[in-house]
């Protein structure tokens, strides 16, 4: 597929950059501590574990970015799902959490596809509404209840040393790759991202495709919420805030065009790994927080510059 081979380059650059981050970090630890902690299986598995939450969120985000849209309601969709899951507890809590994802996705999709509100505005509004609703429900305090067994199972537990959240990430990934490459829905998503009018005039039910993408995005957010709640053993209000911009960055670092239509799923995985490793290595190197932010931002800009130089110009 041309769309795929064309975008291989960002993925290769991304993989190269991952190696570079690990190499620089290792040189640093070898010279200061005499150990190569960044290359130990334990450390790498730990990074995958932490990266899974970002990876799952970014996977969902990619579905809407492919259409040329964006979902800014991800932070509070994630938080609301996790908070309701812990507040209600048990299997019903988990079902409620999935229900939150479905509902928010439907509302976003309907607003964007049928009411034609720009997604940036609409989802920002939905995010604020969710925030308000959760504050009302919890009375402004963090809920007392701890993560449910299912959440702990998904977010904290391991089997044969592999964190379950990594397995969840892998399952979500396989599903989305299948949707993107094998189903008409996936084909239509690329088509809409490239030229919505042409897709519509080809008899594609474009509005349903848009709704489906927003539902996928919100479902990913609440799944990430369940796992993250398990990992931190509780759900709290700001738990999703740290995932909005990094998830968008992961998608774009992975080579997906922010205007939609182009991008390969593997890139998003690579993008999430870059962000997680970069943050981790910078903090181990005991860099000041402010300086870390500067490097983090500079890396994102720098990598995008590298990609865009080589990208085929769309006539």
């Amino acid at each position, binding site marked *: *597929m*041309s*769309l795929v*081979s064309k975008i291989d380059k960002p993925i290769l650059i991304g993989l190269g950059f991952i190696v570079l981050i690990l190499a620089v970090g290792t040189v640093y630890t070898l010279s200061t501590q005499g150990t190569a902690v960044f290359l130990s299986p334990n450390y790498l598995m730990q990074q995958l574990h932490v990266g899974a939450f970002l990876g799952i969120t970014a996977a969902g985000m990619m579905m809407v970015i492919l259409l040329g849209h964006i979902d800014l309601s991800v932070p509070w969709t994630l938080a609301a799902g996790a908070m309701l899951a812990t507040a209600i507890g048990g299997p019903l809590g988990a079902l409620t959490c999935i229900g939150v994802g479905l509902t928010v996705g439907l509302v976003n999709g309907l607003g964007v596809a049928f009411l034609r509100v720009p997604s940036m505005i609409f989802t920002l509004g939905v995010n604020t509404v969710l925030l308000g609703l959760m504050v009302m429900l919890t009375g402004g305090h963090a809920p007392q209840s701890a993560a449910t067994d299912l959440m702990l199972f998904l977010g904290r537990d391991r089997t044969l040393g592999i964190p379950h959240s990594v397995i969840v990430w892998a399952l979500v990934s396989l599903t989305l790759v299948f949707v993107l490459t*094998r*189903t*008409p829905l996936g*084909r*239509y998503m*690329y*088509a809409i991202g*490239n*030229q919505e*009018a*042409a*897709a*519509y*005039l*080809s*008899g*594609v*039910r474009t509005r349903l495709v848009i709704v489906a993408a927003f539902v996928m995005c919100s479902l990913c957010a609440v799944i990430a919420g369940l796992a993250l709640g398990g990992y931190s053993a509780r759900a709290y209000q700001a738990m999703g805030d740290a995932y909005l911009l990094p998830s968008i960055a992961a998608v774009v670092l992975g080579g997906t065009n922010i205007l939609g*239509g*182009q991008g390969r799923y593997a890139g998003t995985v690579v993008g999430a790994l870059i962000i997680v490793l970069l943050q981790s290595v910078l903090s181990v190197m005991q860099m000041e927080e402010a300086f870390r932010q500067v490097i983090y931002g500079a890396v994102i800009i720098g990598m995008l510059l590298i990609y865009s130089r080589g990208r*085929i110009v*769309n*006539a």
Partner: protein
Amino acid sequence: MLDGGPAAPVGGADLVMRGISKSYGGVHALSDVDFASRAGSIHAVLGENGAGKSTLIKIISGVVQPDRGTMSLGGNPVRFASPLEANAAGIVCIFQELSLMPDLSVADNIAITDPPRTRLGLIDGRAQRRQAEALLARVGCEDIDPRERVRDLPLSRRQMVEIAKALGRHPRILILDEATSALTGSDVEKVYAILHQLRDEGLSLLYISHRMHEIEELADTCSVFRNGRHIETFKKGDHSDDEIVQLMIGRDWSNVFPPKPARTSPPEPVLTARGLTWPPALRDISLSVGRGEIVGVGGLDGQGQRELLLALFGVLRGVAGTVSIGGKPVKIHSPASAKSPEIGMALIPEDRKTEGLMLPMGVADNITMAALPWLTKHLVVDRSAEAEKIKEMVARMQIKVSDLDAPVATLSGGNQQKVVIAKWLLTGARIILLNDPTRGIDVGTKQEIYQLLRSLAAEGAAILFYTTDYDELIGCCDRVLIFYDGRVVRELSGESLTETNIIASSLNLQPGEIPTGAVQ
């Protein structure tokens, strides 16, 4: 431009190109082209789309660089790395697509690249206005107010502003790329006059146009290009129109249109519409298209023809009236329902780049975009069936493509349009609506499309064909409906299907009432 007024051009220069080659990917846009244009002449560059005309212009104006070959200007070898460099050497282009900023004033636009400054470095509005006035006067448009917004000018006047702007840049070589296609009425005369005057002042003018009569009126010399090669350069009058067309297409220009089948009885109606109304564009339109019939839709542009096609295809909301397929009333509320097997309708849209194709996506993905639901088993695309269908279509439509996954943007206009048509043939549509499908397509592909339409009709399709080209209405259609102000004012067929009748009805006149000058 220190004096704020238009200085006389510094005089023209001979442009000589030797052995120029340029390829994009594996496609040779120009192969080993020798080309020369003299100072003090108007040189027409002719050829089909894809013949290499635009690449030639792009090389001269520094937009692209040739792979091989040399270029000299007034005897000095030149090489332009950018349009800016070409500009500085006195090469100025006027393009078909207007390059004006609609929300800026006429004067702002004319001075956009190099506005006169005050001593503080700010834009000197007064000097800029004087400069614009002088340039507009030069092209005979004293009546355009330099303070007016370009958006508020009619298209033809904008084109005049464009020409004034070009003159402000002191061209030695002036290139006009279809720059007169938007001109109407007296502006045409003005432009001809100014172009002749510029030639007499010694400029070298390169003129690209598809309109034979313009070439006859303007050009001194003509060069014909075909398939990236320079075929012949000759003086005006050395070849007849027919010979020129033959040079352009490389074969005999006859039998362009396939013969129309003789009909003994009226065909059974496939698509019938009664009282379609969508004010103000459509007013009570009734029509019927029969099995095996090609029904033309004509009239001046913008009389409701496009809306008719969109209404039938389920794109417009709130259309009153009824549509029946094969005698059964149907409701078509979206393109998705229009393409369903019960209805079997297809629309080849007006603008293939924004409505017909996803340009960055592959040829293959574009071909199956509409028929994907029928190539899907258990929610999964059946890739082997898909690949087979794509192969069939590429062969049937003779789409020239080396890599089926290459972005469709890399294809020529004619091949792109074939992809759009292939996409709809794959759905097995029985009713085919076409919205000006041959616009901007080379003569060879046009001919292929006419033949395809006729053979589809022979297989039983019902075809509704909107075109702005009279020859197509006459040559390709069994019957023609002429639109005027949202109504069908006349139906022409057989003996009455003539250019005179089409023009008369388009103006809503009775035959014999044609005002002189309306026929071009």
